[in-house]
């Protein structure tokens, strides 16, 4: 059974004339790593807000259709109930961290779930280890670099042991190396814990190699949906999706008569394919 089911979902923010999500239907299977992308203003952040119930419980507006996560309908369940199943990592970790130490921040979620102290402690240790920041547990979040802060934000969400992790452009404030590190952490959560991942991301050059599937939205609707190498083509580029440079290069070379068995989405794949062409 799919973990996320979106059915005929339409949402219009209070005071807005146009819907931000328009008749959207898709489902995500358990353990999938999905990238949700599309041009600026296409409705991807609104979909994230639905996934943990911020829409319709916090942001007012008109909601039609339904979205269920782990069998829970966002219409029926409160944000606090959904938060046990769906973890949410924001673009700017500063919006999410507020305690005086990383450890306190990570413990906040489990404490609010009313878990016993020993279980909270166990989860904090585990979440810090998985995200690679055990050494920062007593530091104040505001003293940390952007990459370290984002790891702390992921650890805080992880300590709730959600089944689904939603990340809304978690790398956009980070330098490229820190961005790659964060994406590797997310990839690990998916591979080793089998966590279902929904990642909103513009930096497809860095992210697409980790995803099973890319969903491209435009004007609140799904335009393309499939494997990264199938979806990241001319059509995606024309609506404003930043397909990886390497993918674009391969598509252009294909037009020039260099043929690729499949369009590469990583530098490594492209390098192997081009080497074969140039040494034949």
């Amino acid at each position, binding site marked *: 059974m799919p973990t996320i089911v979106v059915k005929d979902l339409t949402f219009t*923010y209070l*005071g*807005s004339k146009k819907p931000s999500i328009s008749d959207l239907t898709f489902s995500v299977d358990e353990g999938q790593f999905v990238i949700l992308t*599309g*041009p*600026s*203003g296409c409705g991807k*952040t609104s979909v994230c807000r639905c996934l943990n119930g911020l829409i319709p419980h916090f942001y007012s507006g008109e909601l039609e259709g339904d979205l269920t996560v782990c069998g829970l309908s966002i219409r029926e369940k409160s944000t606090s109930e959904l938060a046990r199943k769906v973890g949410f990592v924001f*673009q*700017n970790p500063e919006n999410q961290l507020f305690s005086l130490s990383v450890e306190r921040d990570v413990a906040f979620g489990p404490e609010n779930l009313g878990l016993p102290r020993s279980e909270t402690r166990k989860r904090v240790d585990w979440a810090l280890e998985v995200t690679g920041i055990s050494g920062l547990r007593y530091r104040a979040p505001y003293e940390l*670099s*952007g*990459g370290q802060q984002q790891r702390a934000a992921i650890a805080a969400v992880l300590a709730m042991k959600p089944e689904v992790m939603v990340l809304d*452009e978690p790398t*956009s*404030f*980070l*330098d*490229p*190396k*820190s*961005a*790659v590190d964060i994406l590797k952490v997310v990839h690990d959560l998916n591979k080793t814990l089998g966590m279902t991942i929904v990642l909103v991301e*513009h930096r497809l*050059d860095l992210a697409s190699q980790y995803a099973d599937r890319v969903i491209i939205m435009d004007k609140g609707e799904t335009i393309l949906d499939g494997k990264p190498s199938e979806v990241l083509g001319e059509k995606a*580029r024309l*609506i*404003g*999706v*930043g*397909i*990886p*440079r*390497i993918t*674009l*290069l391969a598509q*252009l*070379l294909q037009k*020039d*008569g*260099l043929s690729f068995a499949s369009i590469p989405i990583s*530098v*490594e794949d*492209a*390098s192997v394919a*081009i*080497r074969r*062409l*140039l*040494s*034949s």
Partner: protein
Amino acid sequence: MIKTENLHFAYPTGGDVLNGIDLDIGDSEFVAIMGENGAGKTTLIKHFNGLHKPTKGRVSIDNIDTRKRSVASISKDVGLVFQNPDHQLFCETVEEEVAFSLKNFGYDTETIDRRTNAILETLDLSQYAESSPFTLSGGERKRVALASVLVWNPKHVILDEPTIGQDYQQKDRLRNFILQLVSQRKTVVMVTHDVEFVAECKPRVVLLSAGRVAGDGPAREILTDDVLLNGCSLIRPQISSLMHSLRDLDVSQDIIDVYSARACLVKAYEKVRKCQ
């Protein structure tokens, strides 16, 4: 001209952020300032409009020391667009937001309307003129912040992470717009992590690390220097990584953008085919 001499800066509560920066940025130059999170990039550009004053050393704009002018006066010449648009947006509608500075500078209504409409059009924001900035997406708010600074036509334009939240088309538009500003003899300085964007714009690149200048040169030199990049938590652009991985096949090593790579690889492919 923007000039820093032995610029040192420390926040009152913390250690040194800038440790002796010497930098000359000429008129109509296009410069990208890059480096790891916490290298001091944003602190540096906040000196350019006088928001920060050096704890030691000197910063001058068009040969006048920033300590001798108010922020309000420097701002007429130096427009700074913050990384987080929410730190600078506060009006009820996009149109009011963009017109705000012109009203403050005392322009007449006709000029205000003309300039506001033109910049909204250029940055693809006309359809949101009557909307509240806070109903827009992150990327759109970022463009409103940009419009609200560019509208008063400052001579030097400083952009802090302008590509965050922008999609491919918006980035393309932004790139053309920046190149247009440069051709109008404006100085454009942008702080960015976006190596792919820099690889396409090819500005002069200044690398900062721990408050010092770690590298300074043309994009194609800096973005292909692994030692420098590593020290600043940056990575090569994808195209440069590809060319580097094919270096034994005698392909050019200073290529960083898609179109030059295409030309080079097609030529190499044709050569191989001729030999067969």
